């Protein structure tokens, strides 16, 4: 019975989520009738039927994320009565044609072809791969075990660069893992190999949210939630976090915000204490660039970034996203305001592109909007500092003349990676940010 395998509908996609089945078992479909709506990393896509006949089985459920090449539906020919045994026909039967020949196709772990016995003698190293050959389908096993001890292989051959796809290389790099250390069953190191080695195998998500008898709701872990969880685990258990606090009078910042709001030059942008805090971060970074650095485990280096790519945490319907303003330190205040405004609008509309969430060097999170005084933020992976802005409230404050006066008061919390930054630099940076927010005129001194 023909089975429709999930195609690669977007040039190099490896998986898609089944959103809505448009047909049910027993329905009769014609060629190109819409069968199902799927969501890929790029878009929502309707899949038309390549076969005519009766729907015999839906092989995957709504909410499933399935790999390209997975059979998703079985469609029987309407005019042929098939008995159940037909479904279990041996796969060795020569298929007229693979349904999936374009795109990356199904990953078969068994080699489809082996080298002939007449292959070169075992003392000869395996031939290098040729780029023009489809290495997904034509796989070379390791050379046969040598029958007898051989002359030592030159050291340069001992440590070949392990084969892995670029995203897997990136994952290993992010995790600080050397691919050469990762045990693998095949020739190519897979994502699963790396995750297993890192000891954090991600279990498959449950198929769909379903209310439990005990009154629980089980929500599949995927999308932004999954990404956030992975990032936070990686960050929290890799970078030793230190958090420092400072409570300060920001009345002058509030005056500045009020003044800028009525300035025609700022008429088209949103002016807020977050904007002033973002500017203060960029300025303070000049004196303490260590906060704009990254720990590179693989290279055993601390990488200090020249430009400040300032991440702005945004709560969206899909979850937390942290897009960043590229080169925030080189922007004027009005440009910075426009950039932050565009970033958050895009994020709330769910249109943030993955590229906008990579390359950040420092992050700002405004937890004050939730009415919270302060907290201990977790670093965005790959960054060494994050500043949390607490709620700004009228509080009793003791001024220079020992009078208790009502002032606008807030608390700043700075978390930093103690591998990169010591208490001295962290404290100086936080004190500088606080000084500017306490008296924005201080900005002139930077």
């Amino acid at each position, binding site marked *: 019975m023909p089975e*429709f*395998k*999930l*195609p*690669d*509908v*977007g*040039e190099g996609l490896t998986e898609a989520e089944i959103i809505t089945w448009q047909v049910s078992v027993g329905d009769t479909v014609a*060629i*190109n009738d819409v069968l199902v709506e799927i969501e890929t990393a*790029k*878009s*929502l*896509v*309707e*899949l*038309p039927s*390549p076969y005519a006949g009766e729907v015999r089985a839906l092989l995957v459920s709504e909410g499933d994320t399935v790999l390209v090449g997975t059979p998703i539906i079985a469609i029987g020919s309407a005019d042929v009565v098939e008995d159940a045994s037909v479904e279990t026909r041996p796969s060795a039967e020569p298929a007229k*044609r693979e*349904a*999936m*020949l*374009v*795109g990356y196709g199904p990953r078969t772990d068994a080699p489809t*072809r*082996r*080298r*002939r016995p*007449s*292959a070169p003698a075992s003392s000869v190293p395996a*031939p290098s791969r*040729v780029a*023009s*050959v489809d290495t997904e389908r*034509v796989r070379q096993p390791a050379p046969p075990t040598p029958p007898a001890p051989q002359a030592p292989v030159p050291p340069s051959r001992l440590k070949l660069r392990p084969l892995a796809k670029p995203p897997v290389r990136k994952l290993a790099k992010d995790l600080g893992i050397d691919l050469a250390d990762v045990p693998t069953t095949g020739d190519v190191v897979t994502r699963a190999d790396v995750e297993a080695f890192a000891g954090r195998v991600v279990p498959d998500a449950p198929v769909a949210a379903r209310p439990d008898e005990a009154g629980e709701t089980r929500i599949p872990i995927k999308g932004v939630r999954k990404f956030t969880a992975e990032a936070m685990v990686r960050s929290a258990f890799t970078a030793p976090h230190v958090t420092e606090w400072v409570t300060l009078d920001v009345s002058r910042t509030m005056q500045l915000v009020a003044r800028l709001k009525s300035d025609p030059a700022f*008429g*088209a942008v949103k002016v807020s204490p977050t904007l002033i805090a973002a500017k203060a971060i960029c300025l303070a970074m000049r004196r303490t660039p260590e906060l704009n650095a990254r720990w590179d485990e693989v290279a055993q280096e601390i990488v200090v970034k020249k430009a400040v790519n300032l991440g702005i945490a945004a709560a969206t319907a899909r979850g937390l996203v942290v897009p960043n303003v590229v080169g925030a330190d080189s922007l004027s205040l009005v440009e910075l305001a426009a950039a932050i405004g565009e970033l958050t609008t895009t994020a709330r509309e769910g*249109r943030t592109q993955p590229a906008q969430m990579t390359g950040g060097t420092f992050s700002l999170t405004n937890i004050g909007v939730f009415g919270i005084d302060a907290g201990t933020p977790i670093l965005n992976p790959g960054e060494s500092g994050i500043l949390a802005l607490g709620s700004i409230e009228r509080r009793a404050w003791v001024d220079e003349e020992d009078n208790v006066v009502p002032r606008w008061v807030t608390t700043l919390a700075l978390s930093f990676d103690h591998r990169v930054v010591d208490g001295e630099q962290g404290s100086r940076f936080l004190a500088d940010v606080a000084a500017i927010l306490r008296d924005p005129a201080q900005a002139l001194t930077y």
Partner: protein
Amino acid sequence: MNDPFDPTTPDTTTDSPPVQLLTPAGQRVTDPDYSYDGDLADVQDLYRDLVMVRRIDTEAFALQRHGELGLWPPLLGQEAAQVGAGRAMRPQDFAFPTYRDHGIVWCRGEDPTYLLGIFRGSSLGGWDPADRHVALPNIIIGAQTLHATGYAMGLTIDGLVGTGTPDRDAAAMAFLGDGATSQGDFNEALDWAAVHQAPVVFFCQNNHYAISVPLERQTRVPIAQRADGFGLPGVRVDGNDVLACHAVTTAALQRARDGQGPTLVEAVTYRMGAHTTSDDPTRYREASEVEAWKAKDPLERVATHLRDEGVCEEWFAALDTEADALGEHLRESCQRIPEPDLASLFDQVFVETTVELDQQKAEYVAWRDSFEGSVA
């Protein structure tokens, strides 16, 4: 904010209204400069082309979703521009299409199965451009405008222009989109064509988007107006009106064949679908905009006109059957496209191959043959 580079202000539409001979409601109208001279049977032929080209497109799109093609750039909405221009060409003219001009390939008489081979990644084209005077679809944005200009200059040198022999005088036609007008190649081509009075027609399908970049970020003046600065005439035509596209292109080609130089035609149309099967247009344009263009559908207006002229329903039904047969032909042909032999790549670099390429080919074949079950 007073930003001199603010892209929201340029007005790219208020030049003279595009030439139109058939309204979206299906009414024939007249134009002071252009007219369509065909009879009812000719209009029926054009409608048949429109239906067939749309079927090629929708069928190939579905084949991509079946997993049979790696990619497909849909032309949905641009059928009239391509059929009108394509059918204005004579056999001796030469077409230089883009990757979206499936309708041009159809009008030149090549089997659309070749297009499936290209987008399946199984072939580099498959047809000989000299056979039906249609080049392989160009992927490089705007490059074909220079190819066409060079070919047209060659026609002049060969004495195939302005001799007054209708079956002999020839012209070249470069097809391009609005995005290509921002390429240097396009501007060089216009300049060379104008300076040398080359017999070439630049047919720009302004479908309003260069992938996701809207027209107003592409140009501050109507595209046709760009011709003025280079010293050649520019014409705006309703790109969803097959009769107007045919009339304007016929006149421009005749001008070129007569030795009176190049013309830039801007066919104002709209890409109803995605840029390619990998694109999601809802991320950059509003549904209301798409709906507004749906009302200007290039096929509907011709069907309305034909029915008003008394063409019977049986004729339409027969056309549908023919289109279904074409769809089936494409699906079956796609199944029969042979897997490419990578070794043949080495043969297609030069007319006469080199020693180095021969060696590389031999090494590749030997390596490939070292696998069990290899076919070669």
